[in-house]
């Protein structure tokens, strides 16, 4: 088996599946202005990883994944309780909860002897995309020797797509206007809970494979790249994935070929490179959008026509509109 099939293809496949899982659900987080939740979940899983090891005594993927998923969900639920109990904003509550969980994880790691196991800090940050390789075995096909993390990521991607497709209407209504959605009863609470569980699973699965830096980039950046051009939620989600996929692939090979591309002394970390490329694409997308809309005479809508009157955009950006927690007079 050549190097491409055994090393590059599985790694690119893992990054692609992580993009689909995190990027799809990341659109909802960005639309709801809750992208920080991804960071919170990614950090909050640490005590779960340690607890998974302590309870099972192994570092098997299932122990790690189960512990991490439990910790992620616990953090979300606790953040909700803190939001309600203290009347702080949701993002403040997430900030409180994820630092507490991360600290708890470090404490567990240091006191419970789990530090003998290698939970390598750089692995937590950058993951191990390059080591998701297919061991060459003569008695098995390429397909059947794919590592567990690929299958976990595939499941996370499938759940992310299914959640978004089947409860699309409910998620869009709630993201746009939580109050209307609650009063009308059009968007049952369980649809939102399901989205959060799917998001936690996607982040946990991706965290294991690609590390926390890339997870956060995969959640926030695709949606932010597509947002300036989006005219519908559906369009934003599809655009975010279609534009980000080539960026991810190019970034992976740029890292692998760093010696040639950047004259670096050795190949660079693939996760870090993908995160950097995705992050760089966000301001580029906004610049491109600005240039394009200027070329169209400032008419950002494109097909709006001239009949709509002069006051069309005057109130488009209300600085107060992002502060949903503002107490009304």
């Amino acid at each position, binding site marked *: 088996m050549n190097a491409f099939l055994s090393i590059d293809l599985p790694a690119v496949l893992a990054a692609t599946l992580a993009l689909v899982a995190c990027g799809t659900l990341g659109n909802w987080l960005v*639309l709801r*202005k809750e992208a920080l939740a991804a960071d919170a979940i990614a950090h909050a899983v640490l005590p779960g990883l340690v607890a998974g090891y302590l309870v099972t005594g192994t570092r098997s993927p299932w122990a790690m994944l189960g512990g991490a998923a439990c910790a992620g969900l616990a953090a979300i639920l606790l953040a909700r309780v803190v939001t*309600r109990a203290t*009347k702080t904003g949701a993002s403040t509550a997430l900030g409180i909860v994820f630092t507490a969980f991360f600290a708890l994880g470090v404490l567990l790691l240091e006191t419970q002897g789990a530090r003998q196991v290698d939970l390598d800090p750089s692995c937590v940050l950058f993951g191990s995309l390059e080591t998701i390789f297919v061991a060459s075995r003569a008695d098995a096909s390429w397909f059947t020797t794919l590592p567990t993390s690929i299958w976990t990521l595939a499941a996370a991607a499938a759940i992310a797509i299914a959640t978004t497709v*089947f*409860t699309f*209407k*409910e998620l*869009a*209504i709630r*993201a*746009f*206007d939580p*109050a*209307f959605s*609650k*009063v*009308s*009863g*059009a*968007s*049952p609470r369980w*649809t939102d809970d399901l989205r959060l569980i799917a998001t936690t699973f996607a982040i946990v699965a991706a965290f294991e494979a690609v590390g926390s830096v890339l997870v956060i980039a995969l959640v926030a950046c695709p949606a932010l790249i597509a*947002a300036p051009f*989006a*005219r*519908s*939620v559906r*369009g*934003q989600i599809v655009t975010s994935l279609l534009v980000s996929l080539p960026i991810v692939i190019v970034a992976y090979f740029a890292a692998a070929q760093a010696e040639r591309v950047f004259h670096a002394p050795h190949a660079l970390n693939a996760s870090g490179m993908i995160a950097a490329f995705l992050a760089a694409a966000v301001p580029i997308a906004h610049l491109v959008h600005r240039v394009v809309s200027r070329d169209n005479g400032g008419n*950002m*809508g494109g*097909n*709006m026509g001239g*009949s*709509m*009157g002069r*006051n*069309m*955009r*005057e*109130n*488009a*950006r*209300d600085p*107060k*509109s*992002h502060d*949903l927690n*503002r*107490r*009304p*007079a």
Partner: protein
Amino acid sequence: MNRTRDSAVSPLVVEHFSCGYGGDAAVVVRDASFTLASGTMNAIVGPNGGGKSTLLKGLLGLLPATPTGSARFFGGSLDAARARVAFVPQRAEIDWNFPASALDVAAMGLARKAGVFRRIGRGGRDAAMRALETVALADVAHAQIGALSGGQQQRVLVARALAADAELLLLDEPFANADSAASARLLATLQQLARNGRTILAVHHDLAAVHAAFDRAIVIAGRVVADGPPSASLSGSVLAAAYGIDLTTAATTLTTPTTTSTTSTTSTASPRSTDSQAQAHRSTAAQQ
């Protein structure tokens, strides 16, 4: 469109209702009681911080703390009446950069009827389009909501409530930041809806407009201070009690719009309408 069914059952009966944000701030509105009649225009007015929006949100279960007292919608619980009730939030509470067209937002009103896992089909889109026509936004149906004017955005939210076929519309400051033309247009739409048997309950700042166009004004200042036809409930002595300052001169301006308002310097409670706005509302009311 004419909704005379169940006209005997009040769309909203509120009894000894108290609500607030919980914690130290505790109760914002205390012991409110009132009953709405079908097909009427009702305004909630009162000073800033008096609890107008809080009362509306409390009735709809949108506050973190559980209210006390009772609020019955169409003779039953809100849960049983959700299909007949719609909330129109303050325009400032919506992110207008959300990627959606006016038609997309109006169609959200049909989500409940369609049900989970089902798409809003062509019939639903047609109903959403009719709702946009009712609020005179059919020509901008496919425009992005962020590209609409403030008045148009407010009417998109009303269209969403109409698409939901709601019989009771609760609107939180629908006239905030709207210019006089936009206010007059929205007011005309709401009056049309009331004539068709729908019930309107709107938080409103503009006492002159309430005077001209609403059937009833409920004055809230931590409790129900006055309740009845605007000519009675918006009298000078009631307003003075509610707003904590002497608004007798302000009340005079309500009936004689040519007089210059003398309360424009007070920060708490100045009726913000200009004379031209009052005229606009009056002429709209006269068209009935």
